């Protein structure tokens, strides 16, 4: 994370103080000076302020009152009270009500105040980083829980099928048709294997560093389709790529996204489809790329549309190879890494269409 400049708000009713403050520190910090509390509230709503300084003696709202008021809405802002009068009640209120972090006595010494602001900003940054790390931990933990739950079923189910088949062969003492059982064992093994591959793909995607480079959509789409089309040779592909400008993004992630979506479009065709089709349309310019992947397959039930991007969520499929519930989750994760968005539209029994917008990161 690159260290950004500290954003400082200073509120004081005396214009000269504001000017002096700005003159002293304008090279060190991004400074916002206001003389009125209402203006300060508005500013705090619009700009993420890191450190706020307030003069205690102001005609309408005192510094302590000001801090007390912003506490709830902006709890992370580091609060510094500046005052010329050290009266003990003010100090008590400042600590108890205003929950101030620092107390500065006027007239302030520029070097000293700079040090105070520096360390306040550092405190803000550490607190914020901790918050982000905590959120990541909650997410990882949640994924782990889902994973353990899913492992106890999805990883185990094919193994238990195989064990059952072994038991059955033993019971029949060689009287059954071994090839039927071998087929079933093979199917179970493939199911387990695709689940494992998906999990590995997910973690590779989650961990991989972003690697920005030029993306040539035409060749990328051709490559993905080429690899996938053998899984169902009956599907007709319509590919329409219009790339008007060089496009910069993370090619690996776009590859992952396209592979998953196109693979789904092939997999979730109707069993008896007479003309299974997958339409891929890409239009990109200097700002963004719009990608549409549309199929005339089984579609998704309306009530499932909200859940399809969750880890290990599966909808009932009308064909024999149900998904592992991880593909679209990978898509969403990959999209969040390159700042893209996805929308889905589907009619059950008629087909599904995904529309993606990816920002061109060349700027």
């Amino acid at each position, binding site marked *: 994370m690159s260290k950004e400049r500290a954003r400082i708000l200073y509120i004081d009713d005396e214009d000269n103080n504001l000017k002096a403050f700005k003159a002293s520190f304008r090279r060190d910090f991004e400074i916002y000076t206001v003389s009125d509390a209402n203006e300060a509230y508005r500013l705090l709503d619009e700009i993420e302020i890191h450190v706020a300084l307030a003069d205690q003696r102001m005609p309408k709202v005192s510094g302590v009152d000001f801090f007390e008021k912003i506490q709830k809405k902006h709890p992370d802002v580091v609060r510094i009270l500046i005052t010329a009068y050290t009266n003990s009640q003010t100090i008590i209120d400042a600590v108890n009500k205003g929950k101030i972090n620092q107390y500065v006595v006027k007239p302030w010494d520029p070097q000293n105040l700079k040090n105070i602001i520096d360390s306040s900003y550092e405190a803000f940054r550490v607190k914020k980083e901790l918050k982000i790390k905590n959120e990541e931990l909650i997410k990882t933990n949640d994924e782990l829980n889902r994973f353990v*739950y899913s492992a*106890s*079923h999805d990883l*185990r*189910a094919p*193994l*238990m*099928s195989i*064990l*059952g*088949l072994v*038991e*059955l062969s033993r*019971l*029949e003492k060689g009287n059954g048709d071994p090839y039927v059982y071998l087929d*079933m064992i093979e*199917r*179970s093994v493939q199911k387990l294997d695709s689940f494992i591959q998906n999990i590995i793909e997910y973690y590779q995607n989650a961990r991989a560093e972003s690697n920005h480079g030029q993306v040539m959509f035409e060749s990328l789409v051709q490559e993905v389709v080429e690899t996938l089309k053998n899984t169902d040779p009956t599907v007709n592909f319509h590919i329409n790529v219009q790339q008007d400008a060089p496009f910069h993004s993370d090619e690996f992630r776009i590859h992952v996204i396209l592979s998953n979506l196109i693979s789904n479009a092939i997999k979730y065709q109707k069993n008896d489809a007479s003309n299974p089709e997958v339409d891929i349309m890409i239009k990109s310019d200097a700002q963004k790329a719009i990608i549409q992947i549309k199929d005339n397959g089984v579609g998704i*039930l309306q009530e*499932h549309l909200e859940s399809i991007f969750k880890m290990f969520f*599966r*909808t*009932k*499929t009308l064909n*024999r190879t*149900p998904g592992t519930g991880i593909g679209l989750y990978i898509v969403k994760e990959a999209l969040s890494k390159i700042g893209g968005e996805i929308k889905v539209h589907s009619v059950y029994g008629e087909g599904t269409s995904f529309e993606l917008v990816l920002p061109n990161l060349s700027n």
Partner: protein
Amino acid sequence: MELPYIMLVDDNEIDLFLHEKLIRLSGISEHIVHFTTAREALESLAKNTVIPNIILLDIQMPEMDGFDFLKVYEQMTHINKENTRIFMVSSSLDFGDISKAKANPLVAEFIKKPLNVKELKDLLEK
């Protein structure tokens, strides 16, 4: 003694095949119907007057799982629940799922996959 009428509900077709075979081989029953979705099984229960004596119900199924099945089944007033025993079946080791299955008053027993013929026979013929 008349052999029981058995319904199997499981989204995994291999397991359906397996369970049906095991039940036949062990001589538990010859009268078996099976469904790959809870919805189809419920539809069959709703329109038929002959109700199975035993239902082997898988827990994890997409769209409508075993527990969802039980909620609808409970509302079916034309079925005398005394005459039908439901066994929940799963390969899951999830403590929550197993406890939930065992706690449900409609469920006679929880059975772990893979099904063992002897265990199955003992349970179903009890």
